[in-house]
Each structure stands twice: as structure tokens, then as C-alpha cells.
């Protein structure tokens, strides 16, 4: 198990994930990012909010960015 951090890049800000999450692989982390993006976008749509450009920056314990997953990828990309 590896600890992955899901930092969120917003149109006008950045939210650092201070806790991270234990997952088996980067592949699993990508799936988690996509499924979370879906949940968050669905919530935004229900609330009638504008869906601004947002992305997950997946990083490791050392702070190294491993992948960037734009929320838009969650719409046209299968989760697994």
C-alpha cells in the first residue's frame, strides 16, 4: 500500500491534501480521482453551480506529482 495525496487545483486556488489515502497502485489512485471528480461535478450540477476548471494533482509522500487528472477527464474516460 502506498499513500497518495489528492491535491485539488481550482481555477483560482489550490487545496492541499494534508492526509492522503492508502491505495494499492497509481492506477487505483487514478480511478479514485476520476470517481471523486464525478461525484463532485454531479454535486455542482445539482446545485446549479458553474463547473469551473478543476483538476486532481496526485502526489506521493515525497510531494512528487505523479499525475494530473482534470475533472473533465471523468466524463469521457472510463474509471477503470
Amino acid at each position, binding site marked *: 500500500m502506498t499513500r497518495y495525496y*489528492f491535491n*485539488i487545483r481550482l481555477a483560482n486556488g489550490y487545496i492541499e491534501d*494534508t*492526509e492522503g489515502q492508502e491505495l494499492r497502485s497509481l492506477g487505483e489512485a487514478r480511478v479514485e480521482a476520476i470517481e471523486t471528480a464525478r461525484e463532485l461535478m454531479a*454535486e455542482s450540477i445539482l446545485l446549479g453551480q458553474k463547473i469551473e476548471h478543476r483538476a486532481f494533482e496526485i502526489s506521493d509522500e515525497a510531494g512528487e506529482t505523479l499525475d494530473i487528472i482534470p475533472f473533465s477527464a471523468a466524463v469521457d474516460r472510463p474509471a477503470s
Partner: protein
Amino acid sequence: MAITATLLRAKHANRLLADMDPEDLARIEPHLRHVDLPVTTDLEKAGQKVEYLYFLERGIASVVASNAKGRQIEIGLIGREGVTGFPILLGDSVSSHSTYMQIGGAGHKVPASVISDALKYSPRLREQLARFAHTLMIQTAHTALANGRANILERLSRWILMAHDRVEGNVLPITHVFLSLMLGVRRAGVTLALHELEGRKLIRATRGQITVLDRAGIEQMTNGFYGQPELEYARLHPIQPKESAVVPADAFDLP
């Protein structure tokens, strides 16, 4: 004897023990064992016999429903105002849900058989504990309402207030992953919602803890999803209901 009983009651930080009739308490008290209850301690397991009931003094227990595939959501939250062991109070012996400590604390555990026996002897005790079971059912009903009709921000705000009602001070030691299990949303959704509350200066979220800064502001964020079960609790238990429609943080404190 009466004085001793009063002293015995006054020493209890658990609301139900503190309010208990001296005769009922005398029957139960010899079987109470004080225990530390660190975070994640299992109090009940789904599908298993309830061995002990826990009268909490500190900390928060979560009652969690889950399906065969491990999907889960919190359906009840119990602190020093209550007791675990719902099935025992209602005439069953097996738990349908899991209950575990979500915020570590301490309390008194008592064998389930002691409580079932005491309930047979004393209609007064049965009434007292049934009233608590009733308030827990009201809470669960409102959790269902919130889970079905409220957005993440409203639900998170409601949860923070319910937890705040049950801890000393303003700090809730809770991780995002735990909150995501409780609210049935993915963890980063919790992170984002906490960020939103923090941006409004209502809380401070640091690694593993949430500090309540502006309770009234959080109440506004719940959009009416918080407060009704708390008023019912105040109505059904001998404490003074507060004037405002929303119960302040100290509503569960002893007078």
C-alpha cells in the same frame, strides 16, 4: 441511603446514568466497569450478539449500516447523552449494525444481560431507556432526510454540529477518511467541503482535526437540516430546552 444515591448519580458524566432513578441505578451500578474507549474500538458488530452496553462519558460512537459489498454510511451518533445497545433496549439480542468509537473517549460498560434483567424489573427504567431509543430513531430519521435531500456541505455542517454537541471544547479529532465513511462520500469531497467552510472562517481544518470557530455560521450552512432531533431530545429528557430553535453547544452538559 438517599444521600448516597444522590451522590452516586451526581458523579456520572453520562446523561442517562445521571438522570436515572436511584433504585434503578443501584441495580445496575455494581456491574458497571469503567473503560477507556480509544478511536475505532468496536462496541457492536453487525449480525452478532450484543455483549455489552456502553454508557459513554466522553467521545463519540457511530452506528454504521453497511451492505454485503461493504458500502456503508453512518446512521446514528451517540455521545455522553446516551447509551449503545439499541437491540437490547428494544427486546432483541443481536445487532443489525456495527457500532464503533469514531472519536476516542471513555465510558462504563455493562453486560447486556444486566440491562435486560433490569428492564424486566423496572417499567420506569424501561421508559427512560425507551425514550432515549426514540430520540435515536428521530436522529436516524433526520440522517435519512439529510442523506437523501441535503448536499455535501449541508450534511458536513450538520455532522460537525452534532459532533460538537457531544465533545468538550471546540476541537473534533477526526480524519477526512473517517468523515467520508460517515457521510458516504469520497474523501476528497470532504476535503473540498471543509475547505469551503474554512474559506468562510467557520472552522479551521488541520491534519486529523477540525476546530469549530463560528457555530452560528455553521448552523446557517445546514439550511435547516440540523436542530429538530436536538429539540426532541431536549423535550424528552429532563433538561431545560433553550429558547433558540437551534440547541447550543452546551445543551447536553449537566446542569
